[in-house]
């Protein structure tokens, strides 16, 4: 009997998860395979795995380096510019010789078709699901037309120099493949065709997606070296760690912080890097809010022991020095030093009229969990204790993540916000719009946008106009730096920390360069034959 047991065990272990050399299997945090038709859902993770793999945009993100901030680069468009006489009129020169995975040519007509897919409700190819993901990303676009097969014109509603950043969200699907599959997006989802470095070969909803390299990819440097890329949705953090440890996958996204030490000691590699993410308190600036006093805002920023918080997170955080992570191309040289100085904080609070006899009492909305929110409960408890030490008494209104999203959309004045004077929210700050404009432009207060706190500063609005009207890239970056300097000097939010985008992988995974971006390039990765 014992021998039989051992025999069964040996047989089972012999049949253990075998992986062909050159296959990379990734455990994602999403509970489903992101939308495969072009405009991926599931946020940044969806675009990372199903957007920039199978598809390209006219403008792509530079994902080649871990050391420098990631910026936009030519993608399916090789060059673009705005007309001197009409700042609304953009011309994009398209990359010649690019083919979709189905063999059809990528042309300006295909771009028009793709924009119609998102913006033109009566177009046959209009897809509400892709539109829901993409339309919001290109608010500047008014109209567009193909001038010749390799020249595209886009007209914006008003001069807007951030258009290239907006277009970096828009992925190009193959019109010919859609026609071939009976004009059905459901059929297209199973056999999609983009122009990207990977071709989707298997799509098993909620379970698995498989991709193989596109050898004809236009950027020869980015033709994948792997034989296959496999995506497995594993929403449960412990299940992801178990899948990695048992060799079922080679790479997991966002390992739970408390699993990191044991993973490292078992020989797994933890890869982290700075990226445009922040974890802040977004402050209400409506009438009567205590945050309208800059001394209170600065005091709160000086009261937080960010290094202690980093320790709490097992080192998986970058203490905030501003709204953008340190080293970001838009960081600039703010004068206000975001640091831990409780004595200075107490002094500022005293100047603002608060003290031990009259503590400042606040109500803040936080979530118990949520995408990008890191570990909101212990982190906010830590912040609460820090603030209490300088005389700010905080009560939390803990809500579920989806409710917090709705609060954020509704604005500080809405009933749903329950009178909180701040919300703890983590932001993707990938481009000028997601980074600054949506939070701070005065005319984007609800219901027009997500300026939750009704922040309104004519000087800031002027800078935003300048961003939109500065068409020279370097000059525009200089304006973006000015915005950040003002943001920090005015302590517009309580700037707390940045995530480091952690992922754990087997030592077999070689050649991965973690770009300072939400998206990543899987082309240069190889799988070594030996090693765990």
């Amino acid at each position, binding site marked *: 009997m014992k021998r039989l047991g051992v025999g069964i*065990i040996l*047989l*089972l*272990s012999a*049949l*253990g*998860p075998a992986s062909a050399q050159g296959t990379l299997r990734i455990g994602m945090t999403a*509970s*489903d395979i992101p*939308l495969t038709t072009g405009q991926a*859902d599931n*946020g940044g993770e969806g675009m990372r795995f199903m957007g920039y793999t199978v598809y390209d945009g006219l403008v792509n993100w530079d994902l080649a380096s871990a050391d420098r901030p990631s910026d936009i680069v030519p993608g399916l468009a090789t060059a673009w510019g705005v007309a001197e006489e009409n700042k609304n009129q953009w011309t994009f020169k398209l990359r010649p010789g690019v083919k979709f995975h189905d063999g059809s040519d990528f042309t300006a007509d295909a771009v028009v078709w793709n924009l119609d897919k998102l913006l033109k409700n009566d177009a046959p190819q209009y897809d*509400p*699901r892709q539109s*829901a*993901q993409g*339309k*919001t*990303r290109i*608010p500047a676009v008014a109209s567009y037309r193909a001038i010749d097969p390799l020249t595209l014109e886009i007209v914006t509603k008003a001069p807007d120099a951030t258009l290239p950043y907006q277009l970096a969200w828009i992925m190009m699907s193959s019109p010919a493949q859609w026609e071939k599959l009976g004009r059905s*997006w*459901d059929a297209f*989802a199973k056999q999609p065709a983009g122009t990207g470095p990977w071709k989707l070969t*298997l799509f*098993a*909803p*909620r*379970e*698995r997606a498989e991709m193989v390299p596109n050898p004809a990819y236009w950027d020869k440097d980015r033709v994948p070296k792997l034989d296959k890329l496999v995506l*497995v*949705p*594993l*929403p*449960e953090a*412990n*299940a992801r*760690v*178990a*899948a990695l*440890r*048992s*060799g*079922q996958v080679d790479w997991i996204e966002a390992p739970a912080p408390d699993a990191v030490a044991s993973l490292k000691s078992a020989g797994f590699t933890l890869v982290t890097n700075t990226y445009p993410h922040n974890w802040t308190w977004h402050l209400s600036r409506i009438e009567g809010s205590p945050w309208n006093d800059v001394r209170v805002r600065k005091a709160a920023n000086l009261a937080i022991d960010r290094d202690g918080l980093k320790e709490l997170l097992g080192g998986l955080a970058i203490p905030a020095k501003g709204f953008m992570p340190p080293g970001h191309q838009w960081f600039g040289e703010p004068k206000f030093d975001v640091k831990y100085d409780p004595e200075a904080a107490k002094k500022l609070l005293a100047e603002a009229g608060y003290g031990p006899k009259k503590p400042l009492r606040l109500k803040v909305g936080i979530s118990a969990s949520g995408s990008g929110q890191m570990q909101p409960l212990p982190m906010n408890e830590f912040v609460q204790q820090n603030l209490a030490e300088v005389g700010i008494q905080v009560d939390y209104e803990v*809500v*579920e993540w*989806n*409710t917090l*999203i*709705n609060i*954020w*959309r509704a604005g500080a004045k809405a009933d749903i916000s329950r009178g909180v004077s701040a919300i703890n929210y983590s932001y993707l700050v990938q481009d000028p719009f*997601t980074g600054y404009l*949506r939070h701070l432009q005065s005319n984007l207060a*609800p*219901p*027009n*946008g*997500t300026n939750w706190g009704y922040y309104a500063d004519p000087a800031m609005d002027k800078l935003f106009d300048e961003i939109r009207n500065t068409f020279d890239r370097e000059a525009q970056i200089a304006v973006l730096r000015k915005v950040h300097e003002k943001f920090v000097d005015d302590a517009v939010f309580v700037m707390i920390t940045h995530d480091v985008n952690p992922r754990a992988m087997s030592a077999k995974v070689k050649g991965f360069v973690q770009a300072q971006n939400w998206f990543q390039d899987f082309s240069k990765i190889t799988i070594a034959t030996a090693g765990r």
Partner: protein
Amino acid sequence: MLLYVLKRLAYVTPVAFGVSVVCFLLVHLAPGDPLSAVLPADATQATIDEMRAAYGFDKPLPVQYLIWLWHVLQGDLGVSIATGRPVAGEVGRAVVNSLILASAATLIGFTFGTLFGFVAGYHRNSLADRAASALSVFGVSVPHYWLGMVMVIVFSATLGWLPPTGAGPDGSGNWRPDLDHLRYLILPAITMSVIPTGIIARTVRALVADILAQEFVEALRAKGLDEWGVFRHVVRNAAPTALAIMGLQLGYLLGGSILIETVFAWPGTGFLLNAAIFQRDLPLLQGSILVLAMFFVALNLLVDVMQTALDPRIERA
């Protein structure tokens, strides 16, 4: 008999209607916006309104219910908000996967439950009885979620014998009962079987003890029947109740265990419900709950009809 079946079918109609109302309303009680899951967080109000109208969420609740019911009556459970795929297909695939897992768990539960039950019943108050009873108490009281994680830590993460997640090397699409796929079934099925094992063991123990104390057993022994022969009589007497309990357990397990299927990423109804809850995917949630609830209604109907066929006295009652 036909009249009885028709009468029972007539009873089912209001029950089904009530189930559909509860399914529809319960999911609307939960906080959160179903569109939050699909729209980018900074979608404009115009986009949100457009989507709300596209999915019919802008209509009054009773109207939404009637439209939904009308589609359901035609076999259309709607389209998942999060995935855009038809709910019927999603639920159908998940039910098949849960059926595979539940059958395996029931098989393990029934085998070990009856084994422990018979051993304990035959040897009351012995060491074997105490051990079997302890095991069944463990079975009904141990938290599934914890046991699943311990199994994964031991057998997958540490020993590396069995895969911790999924339904097969290439997903559940081409599931077949070969070793490659069965390896994926072992851990979740064992984890899921501990409750039925405990329940069946306890029931069978009591049954066997009860049967052994009956006079006919004494009579069989007095007539000189050997112990094997007596055992066969005990089995025959205990079988109907044990089988009924097994059937009941299969019914429970078919509903899928949200915790077990999530821990093992087993793509069954529990996993689907979990995803639907977190994504506020109302059509998927409504469809899954309705299918599972109707499954129980149908199962009850079937049991009633079968019992009546076997015992006509029930019909008169």
